[in-house]
């Protein structure tokens, strides 16, 4: 008995080790490539140990000057991360946490805004901003719609609710490629109408959009956000619906007996119970928006986000740019890794069943 359990434990650990290596090794390889000199990368026999390291690839991808000390950039990034972490930790411990969390978000904003003023940056920096804007907007819109729709569909059990859910599932099941051209042509039609009718080039009184001369949809961040929200909506609705199904109806009823309107019951009692679900769904939405390639490529010929930028700028498999491509991949993955590490506790809670039962 003892022998067999020990054996099976060894087997289990060995299997896990293989699986972890299987998923982590490609990333390690990419990271290694990003800090090597081209000659080591291009060597016929892979150089795994004892190579000279360099931040040249990162410098070349992000910055426009050649003689910048990458250590100062790293210190800048680490300092920002440390400040955000401290503010977040304080926020967790105090009663009114929102000022602290907003301060952390503010620090990120200021850091992103100051960065190109301290160092001269490449175009890729604009694409990072695009990525952030697209991701945050997609998350906000998707989650808001998903919360309301999921709640409604969880509580309403009529036939039309079932129809909506099935249609949403079908929409989700269709391949992404099926939507991209209709979206493109739809947006193009609207743009053509805006241009031909002159609406697109109206001068709106009082409203002045900086950097925008003509109103259009194609090749804007808005186009990407709208398309991503549309394809992601079935997922958020289904996720939230299943979480809301677990909230006992009596809790809302108790809130209403206590003197709350339906909306108050939703906002003050149900939503606070849903945080694990919101975080889990939000993270998945974030991954979708941040990693999207196809939609961005088609709907925004120049307003790229990072995945498209990497492929287009570092292009091909020539050994000259392969270190740069690796550096780009590592640097766009790291923010996601950080976010997931920060929220992994909630992620597990949100995905586990019964998270909201008292």
């Amino acid at each position, binding site marked *: 008995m003892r022998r067999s359990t020990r054996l099976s434990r060894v087997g289990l650990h060995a299997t896990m080790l293989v699986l972890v290596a299987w998923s982590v090794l490609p990333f390690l390889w990419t990271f290694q490539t990003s800090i090597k000199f081209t000659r080591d990368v291009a060597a016929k026999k892979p150089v795994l140990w004892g190579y000279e390291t360099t931040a040249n690839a990162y410098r070349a991808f992000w910055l426009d000057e050649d003689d910048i000390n990458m250590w100062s950039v790293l210190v800048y990034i680490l300092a920002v991360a440390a400040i955000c972490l401290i503010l977040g930790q304080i926020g967790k411990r105090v009663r009114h946490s929102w000022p602290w969390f907003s301060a952390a978000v503010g620090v990120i904003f200021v850091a992103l805004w100051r960065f190109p003023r301290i160092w001269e940056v490449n175009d890729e920096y604009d694409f990072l901003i695009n990525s952030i804007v697209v991701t945050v907007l997609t998350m906000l819109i998707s989650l808001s719609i998903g919360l309301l729709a999921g709640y409604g569909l969880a509580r309403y059990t009529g036939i039309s609710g079932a129809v909506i859910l099935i249609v949403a599932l079908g929409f989700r099941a269709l391949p992404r490629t099926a939507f991209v051209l209709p979206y493109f042509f739809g947006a193009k039609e609207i743009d053509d109408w805006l241009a031909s009718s002159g609406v697109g080039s109206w001068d709106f009184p009082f409203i002045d959009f900086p950097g925008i001369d003509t109103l259009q949809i194609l090749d804007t961040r808005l186009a990407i956000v709208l398309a991503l929200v549309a394809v992601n909506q079935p997922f958020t609705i289904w996720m939230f619906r299943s979480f809301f199904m677990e909230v*006992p109806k009596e*809790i809302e*009823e*108790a809130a209403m*007996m206590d*003197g709350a309107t339906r909306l108050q019951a939703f906002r003050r009692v149900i939503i606070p119970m849903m945080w694990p679900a919101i975080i889990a769904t939000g993270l998945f939405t974030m991954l979708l928006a941040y990693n999207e390639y196809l939609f961005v490529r088609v709907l925004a010929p120049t307003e790229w986000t990072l995945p498209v930028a990497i492929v287009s700028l570092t292009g091909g498999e020539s050994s000259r740019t392969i270190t740069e491509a690796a550096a780009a991949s590592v640097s766009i993955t790291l923010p996601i890794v950080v976010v997931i590490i920060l929220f992994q506790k909630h992620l597990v809670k949100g995905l586990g069943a019964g998270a909201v039962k*008292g």
Partner: protein
Amino acid sequence: MDPTGVAGLCRRGVKMSTVTLDKITKIYPNGFQAITELSLTLEEGEFLVLVGPSGCGKSTALRMIAGLEDISSGDLYVGDRWLNDVQPKDRDIAMVFQSYALYPQMTVAENIGFPLKLRKISRRERQEQVWQAAEILELTEQLEKKPAQLSGGQRQRVAMGRAIVRRPALFLMDEPLSNLDAKLRVQMRADIAGIQRELGVTTFYVTHDQVEAMTMGDRVAVIKDGILQQAAAPEALYDNPDNVFVAAFIGSPSMNLYEATLSEVDGHYQLQLGDQSLAVPEQILASRPALRDYLDQPVVVGIRPEDLEDAAVASDHPNDQRLDAEVAVREALGAETLVHFSIAAPSVDSGDPDALDELGDEDVSRCTARFSAATRTRVGDRIRVNVSTEKLHFFDRRTHLAIRT
């Protein structure tokens, strides 16, 4: 429980209101009629228990009063206010749910204070009132804990606290004790009844447990299949049940019910119960003249278990008011001993869906007797059983209504 705290709550002034249900009916969209013309009036400060077997519509009735279900027809008044179309939040009614329905992300203090917060009562005042409610319910130690950290009994008290802190016009309680273990239930039963009496708030309490109903209610309303069977004080309900269902439902162990025939032999009355007969005293018929119409016809006769006694213990009982029996099961409870035996008479279905069906032969029914602890009977003994015939209950065989006049 702390009575001085209750006094504090009372001083703040409690609204007392009568509650009137006038022919309230609930029909679901699928045509199912859950409640049929329920009419009840609760006096100011009265504790009314609505009791019935599972699925009888009692929770639906409660939810209609709460405003969580629409009233299909009929009128609901609290005081002078007609409440049919009033939103739950505006009804000034507090409710304790079976599952407690506490807000898991809030502390106990926040849970209890939530109704006050919604009424925009200042923080100071809120804290004071929460503290008072917590003192009554002995929750002052738990105020900063989350519901998940509490025991079942404590959660139940938090749910109570959320109701009493508002001083509502009416309390609704939906089987609040059914998730507690037996011992705690007995204690909470007394506590809830005590708090209600002190606060004097009219209370409408729903349960399927007839013991809770009998011990807690000023008045008990028995309901079956959405139709009110009888509403009366617990003692009246027990002594004078209106029909077979109420007779069988109230009391534990429940009343033994058989088909029997009453006949007159040589100027004496006797009850033929299967192959045995019992002498029936004259006064039974004197007080129930209607019973004469049933002579030589089958009627339903009911015998409460405590109206049966081991003849060996009480030997001065008249011999012609005894039954022969063979003990099948004996349950010694200490203060008393329950003895089960069978009687060769057809049993009567009281219509309680929760009751066990009679097993085996149709003409043999089980009988439960509550003997004093002095009995020496053992399983397999053939014994004589005294029947207090003056306490027999009689019902019409077809309508199941009591024959009392």
